[in-house]
């Protein structure tokens, strides 16, 4: 549709609308815009490039806006700069292994379910819809998907803590907001990345329902990593603060008194990266 619109505009001597798009089959992650208020148009599991005109009523007015987030400056029209995502990955979204000398691939058996679950998280295309959907402009789903993908595999587990800390830190630095558990990101993720394992335990709770949460506000704690790197005096140990990554419930557990944390994978925690009382 935008192609056609632009052809018409150019023919009429007007400036076409700039927009990003490349593979046109929903895998490269380059496209994306808010259509009628919904990231990627709001169709389940669909990127903007796969939204067809037949899904709109004839003659209707369609409103298209770029992703809006402080961390994604608009370049022109619908084109935005998602370089902040690359910077998050650069901070640690990898296994620190160089080319050459890898052992035989089958020397390291990996639980098939873990591989599948890692793949669920690895399916992220880096489009930024999660950020656009989030009222806080948080990149938590994007960040946690990578943390979760790698931490579930033995190759990635070695650096899991370091990675999670570095990536969350970088996320904050890049100007993304914090997660306060709205879960809008999951709804609009075109690859349907979510905390599926634990959500499955809660039948009947719609994804967008308001969820009980305790958002920690304290002048000393400005970043997620502050929570992890020092004891938190305002909370007592019996409140047992849990701190988990988004995605398939993989993340970090923090002991607020000692400040210690551990890499964590379980179905026991329900929510995203936040501080909550239990």
């Amino acid at each position: 549709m935008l192609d056609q619109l632009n052809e018409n505009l150019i023919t009429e001597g007007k400036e076409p609308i700039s927009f990003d798009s490349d593979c046109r089959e929903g895998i490269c992650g380059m496209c994306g815009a808010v259509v009628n208020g919904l990231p990627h148009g709001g169709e389940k599991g669909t990127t903007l490039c796969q939204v067809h005109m037949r899904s709109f009523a004839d003659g209707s007015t369609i409103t298209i806006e770029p992703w809006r987030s402080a961390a994604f400056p608009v370049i022109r029209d619908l084109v935005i700069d998602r370089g902040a995502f690359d910077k998050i990955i650069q901070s640690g979204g990898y296994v620190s292994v160089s080319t050459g000398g890898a052992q035989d691939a089958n020397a390291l058996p990996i639980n098939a379910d873990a591989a599948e679950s890692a793949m669920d998280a690895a399916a992220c295309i880096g489009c930024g819809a999660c950020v656009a959907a989030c009222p806080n402009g948080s990149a938590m789903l994007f960040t946690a998907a990578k943390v979760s993908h790698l931490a579930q595999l033995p190759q990635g587990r070695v650096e899991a803590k370091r990675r999670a800390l570095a990536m969350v830190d970088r996320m904050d630095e890049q100007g993304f907001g914090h997660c306060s558990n709205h879960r809008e990101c999951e709804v609009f993720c075109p690859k349907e990345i979510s905390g599926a394992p634990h959500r499955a335990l809660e039948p009947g709770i719609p994804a967008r329902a308001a969820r009980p949460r305790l958002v920690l506000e304290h002048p000393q704690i400005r970043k997620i990593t502050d929570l992890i790197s020092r004891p938190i005096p305002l909370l007592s140990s019996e409140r047992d603060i849990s701190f988990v990554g988004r995605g398939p419930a993989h993340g970090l557990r923090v002991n607020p008194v000692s400040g210690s944390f551990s890499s964590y994978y379980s179905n026991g925690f329900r929510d995203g990266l936040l501080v909550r009382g239990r």
Partner: protein
Amino acid sequence: MALDAKIPGGPIETRWDRHRFDLKLVNPANKRKYRIIVVGTGLAGASVAASLAELGYEVLNFCFQDSPRRAHSIAAQGGINAAKNYPNDGDSIYRLFYDTVKGGDYRARESNVYRLAQISGNIIDQCVAQGVPFAREYSGLLANRSFGGAQVSRTFYARGQTGQQLLLGAYSALSRQIEAGKVKMFPRREMLDVVLADGHARGIICRNLLTGAYEKYAAHAVVLATGGYGNVFFLSTNAVGSNVTATWRAHKRGAFFANPCYTQIHPTCIPVHGEGQSKLTLMSESLRNDGRVWVPRRQGDTRAANDIPEAERNYYLEERYPSFGNLVPRDVASRAAKKMCDEGFGVGETRLAVYLDFRDAIKRDGRATIEKKYGNLFQMYEKITGEDPYTMPMRIFPASHYAMGGLWVDYNLMSTVPGLFVLGEANFSDHGANRLGASALMQGLADGYFVIPYTIGGYLAAATSKPVSDDGREFGETMAEVEARVHKILAVNGKRTARDFHKELGKLLWDHCGMARNANGLKKALVRIPEIRAEFWENVRVTGTGEEFNQELERAGRVADFLEFGELLVRDALHREESCGGHFREEHQTPDNEAKRDDEHFSYAAAWEFQGVGAEPTLHKEPLAFEYVKPTQRSYK
């Protein structure tokens, strides 16, 4: 100029080992003194940029997208081949080598293919170490599936997103080197020329797509990993941004272009559904295992598929190829579909489609079984077409998918321009006239992770390590030429859009240089392309200016290059008076309509030397020797 492929001698099994030993090494402490430019961030580009940086070289990496993770390698679905022989079903390096040479219809270089097969196993090891989530058995070991007619299961996969996962693996390795400061990443830069000094590639000229500024970068070597030219047909399964510009500009600077007429047309794509369509979508060819391909027996039959009685359906593949039926190879299936449509039997609104029907399979096996096997593909089809393939037959049509041809390279993957290396789909090296399924990912990563890191050292060790500078006369001149060309496009200010020209060129090539070609049509195209090109330079309309983010200008520049390249594609197809792999000349077929090679006259790689736009290029031949796999005629009856 005689082409020297620098193929090592001796038994094929030991060639790569010995060559690696013979190559000069660069002292580890000296590596940081060399700067290498890598253009492209797909499987080949990202893997080579990361690997060279790990070795200690200074790397500058460029891509035109907003992030290196967008490169079109990401869209590959099926898998990656490796001769691991984990299933113990008789695979071996030699068998992968043999299958690839044969699959390429005996038009690939044996030594390169053997090396590819040798390295294939290392790729899987490397990717697993990076955390690529390949599919696994319950034992925890890697799962394999069979693919593309191979008789062994050697394809590793990550759901239907293997390309994505491999690319993200290479991207993560690249990201690690960016963080370490060893790779400097330049997204949204389009390479518009190669700079030569003393006959060696010494840098590139880019346009900064955000600001429109021209930028020059100097290096000791330039590596192009810029993908294939499938979009010359306008409609293809490639990303809409995929283009020929980088390789074409390098060609104009002296790099020979080899075998451009070897283009792969994939049979099972979702057909064109209207004038405004921008690209075509591939569906796995595994669908042909259970689907039956047919067209109505009556020409121009407009009844709905389900209203056409059994007796009036023509299951033409089953009739023509009784033993292979619907499972004939890609090129045969593609050509048969085209023939039906050409003769007026096509279906759907555009009459350019054939049916792929699961009615009988659903009747036989039940809907649940079919859903389990093909559910995701059916869903994809429904999403795109809005039709339910469980209740009405799919419509399919072939589409341009991959380019086997590319810049000519020697065994070191160096082009005819010293210091200019070409990797992945951008080169011509490993697939001959036809690529086998799941081999593109293998080649891209083999080149990037395991070939160039060695061979580039051999070149650099003999070159100067003195710091390079972009101050030279050559940089200024090349940059001025690049700027002049952009200004020229902007100055036309005509009436037609660049996309419109691209469409016209694409349709012309699809009609005359697509699945089946003949001298008459090719000659027509050869007359018409320069006319379209001339009109482009008189009548293209590009809005905006060159000093800003201007996607229309980007497009116009790419289309201008396609308009020059298209002519070479046709010339190559016209000169190759035989049929082989993806190149089918109607004049050269066996009595039962199979591709008929002419090994006596055409057993060579055709490497074209640029002589000017519109001027006839010079043909150089690299003879192909088949010492191990003896050429035979393929047959599917």
